[in-house]
């Protein structure tokens, strides 16, 4: 990719960004920035692509097929364990935006301590929902081998699993959380969509949704990255000053699916997770490393060698504004 | 040759007076590619009584096989009526046996299973069916080849398997389309014997398509000569030679020679018409 040649403050560089599910509420700032026209204002031509199913977005970026990814921060650490340098340039969320939802039919789960012998849903094996579930269980004295992990996906499959007893509880994001609650199928047990809830659950903040790029790209295209940072930071500020209904109104109409009210509700529930300035929250990376270092096979082996300072930079958000 | 009993068997099936096969103005047209119709046979009217043996001769491609396919119920007539045992033909009439001109034995069954097929279809127990099949395999001279598959047989052997397959079901209406064409002269005579033995005892009506006039005359009660295509019945020659007949003897008798000449002349005309038509059509 000849992106380096475009790295000129006056030119309008082309950047392609892969979003790990463009219509997920946790990744909403990406589409919102485009809808608000902030990319154009910042002088960057962004091509948003969606990759609905998780981890291979990073592979695609590392293979040079896209320039940036909007995804979970924890991937930067996992990748460093594989000697790949990827850094978060704008941190969109300071908490995972996930919640452990318990089926209403199963009243035996009152806290994470009751996970033993239960079927716990995650979106896919090896995802952050998987690691967070393991972390929560262990922290509450339940060994990971005492419960069974079930891949339940997100969306309807998760809801159906809750309803028909395929899982007793599960970790997922909005709008699945809001839908489950709305349909009376589940209630939120551990809410990691807010700062307080996350701190209570994990003992610290857990930075999640972020824009990350390869270190090489950042080094070679600082001006382009700066433009992206400018645009994203404006969006984060805009989010913090508008309410859920206003945000929902900016999004493409069909993102609301069949039920606009529910969509507003899920934005409302989830918007506290967003940062207001795009900065990495204090202590966040350490929590993430703690979680991955305990449960991810690849990270576990190299836990002590991980250099967290190479997994994110605040240089660009500092300059934004 | 075997002794042949009277050809009007008292135990013959079928209602007396009702022909076993009755074609009335039967016409068969095939759709061709350009949508027009090709007439294969035209206005064929013919009755065959129970217990009667009719040989059919005609120029190649005139419509003999087509006529048999109407009687067997495999193809419906376009115009006219076809009746077997007094019933209009719809689907395959009961008691019809048809030995096709083309190879029709099942390639995935060995000789024994192929011959036993008709009996198995009729619900006979395997052991019984096989016992009778073995008997028939010997009659057609294929003893020892029971477990061969058709592709391991010569052309003439396959024909004999088909023959046994058809005769084992003891049909009351027997249609044979050039059954002995691929056999050597002697085997052919042995098979003719077998056929006559079966037929004379059973009172079945038999329609026998052949190109061999000697064969036609020595086997049949009547020889039907068909015209050039679209075929219709041109001539019917009654063979009034006494049965049992010894081919080698009668073929030198004046009656035989006269019959032969009559049929031959009748047929030659038609063949020449066919031929001339083929030539003129291109000219």
């Amino acid at each position, binding site marked *: 990719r000849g992106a380096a040649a475009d790295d000129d403050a006056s030119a309008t560089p082309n950047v392609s960004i*892969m979003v790990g599910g*463009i219509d997920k509420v946790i990744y909403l700032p990406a589409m919102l920035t485009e809808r608000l026209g902030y990319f154009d204002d910042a002088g960057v031509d962004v091509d948003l692509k969606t990759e*609905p199913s998780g981890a291979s977005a990073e*592979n695609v970026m590392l293979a040079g097929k896209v320039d940036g990814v909007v995804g979970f921060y924890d991937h930067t650490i996992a990748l460093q364990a594989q000697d790949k340098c990827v850094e978060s340039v704008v941190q969109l969320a300071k908490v995972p935006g996930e919640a452990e939802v318990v089926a209403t039919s199963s009243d035996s789960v009152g806290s994470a301590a009751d996970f033993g012998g239960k079927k716990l849903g995650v979106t896919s094996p090896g995802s952050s929902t998987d690691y967070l579930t393991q972390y929560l269980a262990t922290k509450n004295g339940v060994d990971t081998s005492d419960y069974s992990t079930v891949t339940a996906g997100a969306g*309807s499959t998760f809801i159906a699993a809750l309803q028909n007893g395929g899982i007793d509880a599960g970790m997922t994001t909005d709008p699945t959380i809001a839908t489950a609650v709305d349909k009376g199928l589940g209630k939120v047990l551990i809410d990691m969509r807010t700062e307080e809830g996350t701190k209570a659950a994990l003992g610290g903040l857990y930075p999640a949704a972020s824009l990350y790029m390869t270190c090489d790209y950042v080094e070679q295209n600082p001006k382009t990255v700066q433009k992206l940072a400018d645009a994203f930071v404006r969006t984060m500020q805009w989010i913090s000053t508008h309410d859920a209904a206003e945000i929902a109104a900016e999004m493409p109409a069909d*993102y609301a699916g069949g039920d606009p009210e529910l969509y507003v509700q899920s934005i409302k529930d989830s918007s506290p997770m967003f940062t207001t300035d795009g900065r990495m929250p204090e202590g966040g990376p350490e929590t993430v490393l703690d979680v991955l270092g305990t449960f991810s096979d690849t990270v576990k082996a190299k836990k002590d060698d991980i250099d967290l300072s190479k997994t994110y930079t605040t240089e660009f958000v500092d300059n934004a504004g | 040759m075997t002794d042949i009993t009277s050809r009007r068997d008292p135990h013959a099936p079928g209602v007396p007076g009702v022909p076993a096969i009755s074609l009335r103005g039967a016409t068969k047209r095939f759709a061709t590619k350009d949508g027009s119709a090709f*007439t294969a046979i035209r206005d064929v009217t013919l009755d065959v009584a129970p217990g009667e043996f009719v040989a059919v001769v005609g120029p190649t491609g005139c419509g003999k096989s087509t006529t048999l396919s109407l009687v067997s119920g495999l193809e419906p007539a*376009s115009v006219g009526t076809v009746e077997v045992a007094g019933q209009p033909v719809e689907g395959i009439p009961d008691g019809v046996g048809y030995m096709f001109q083309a190879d029709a034995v099942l390639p995935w069954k060995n000789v024994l299973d192929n011959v036993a097929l008709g009996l198995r279809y009729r619900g006979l127990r395997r052991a019984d069916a096989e016992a009778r099949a073995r008997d028939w395999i010997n009659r057609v001279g294929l003893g020892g080849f029971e477990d061969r598959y058709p592709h391991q047989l010569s052309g003439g052997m396959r024909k004999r398997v088909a023959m046994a397959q058809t005769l084992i079901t003891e049909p009351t209406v027997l249609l044979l389309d050039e059954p002995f064409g691929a056999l050597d002269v002697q085997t052919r005579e042995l098979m003719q014997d077998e056929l006559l033995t079966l037929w004379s005892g059973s009172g079945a009506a038999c329609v026998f398509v052949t190109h061999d006039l000697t064969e036609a005359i020595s086997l049949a009660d009547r020889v039907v000569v068909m015209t050039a295509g679209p075929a219709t*019945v*041109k001539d019917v020659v009654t063979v009034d030679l006494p049965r049992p007949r010894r081919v080698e003897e009668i073929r030198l008798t004046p009656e035989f020679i006269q019959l032969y000449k009559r049929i031959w002349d009748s047929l030659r005309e038609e063949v020449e018409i066919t031929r001339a038509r083929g030539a003129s059509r291109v000219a």
Partner: protein
Amino acid sequence: MSLDTQTRPTAEPQQVPAPSPTFRLFRSRASRRRSTVALVRVLLIVVWLASWELAARTVIDPFYYSMPSQIWDRLVDWFTEGTSMGSIWSNMAVTLEEAVLGFVIGTFAGVVLGIVLGRARFLSDVLAPFIKGANAIPRIVLASLFVIWFGLGMSSKVATAFVLVFFAVFFNSFQGAREVDKVLVDNARILGASRWAMMRTVILPSATSWILASMHVAFGFALIGAIVGEFTGADQGLGLLINHAQGNFDAAGIYAGMLIVTVLALGAEWLITRLEQRLTSWRPPSGSELARDL
């Protein structure tokens, strides 16, 4: 026992130019049959939709199963208002283009390789386990590899469609090439057919019905491939539309997307059937007579 010997007319024309009444009867019977078929089909659809609608309004939860009226609304919406990923037509065009390309390339490769290996015993013995093993590789895994290899453009989806189409066509062409009647091959060899002429005039025509049978499945597969590819990473296409609906609890959207895919497949199917009719025009008019009695 009676017999009428007909005197034959002097010059009966062998071809009957104007269809006789019987023939017209045949034809009208065929067309009556066609309309019966259409009627039964429509009836089936109506019964199915009505019972679905009814069930969704009473027993089953339209949250999961949607219902025809909602699907219809969603379709109207897509076609009049467009979707969040641009006009529905351009989404359809993208998916169709990917599928068609994958289909064409996959069919071509499948036929060529299938026929060649079908006739080259040694080569096929050596390669068989590799091809059979490759066929078992899950296509979703392949799809993500393709994105890495070919990028996010059209090519990765075409590649996914290709691998689905290729195997379906390959195995049938292969078997078709093996099933050729030995006596036909022998005859052509005696008549002096070169290797290439043999392929063209004997093996390929004989394997045609095998190849066509696989093509019927294959276009559906090509569409699936394109959609799987889109699921793995894309910016437009029906796959994204469906995926988007999945992420938003929009059951109506899922079914509407599937419906559009189905219609596309039926369109392609129609074309393949036309091709089939042309290629097999030499055959006896298929066994309707026969099927009636069976």
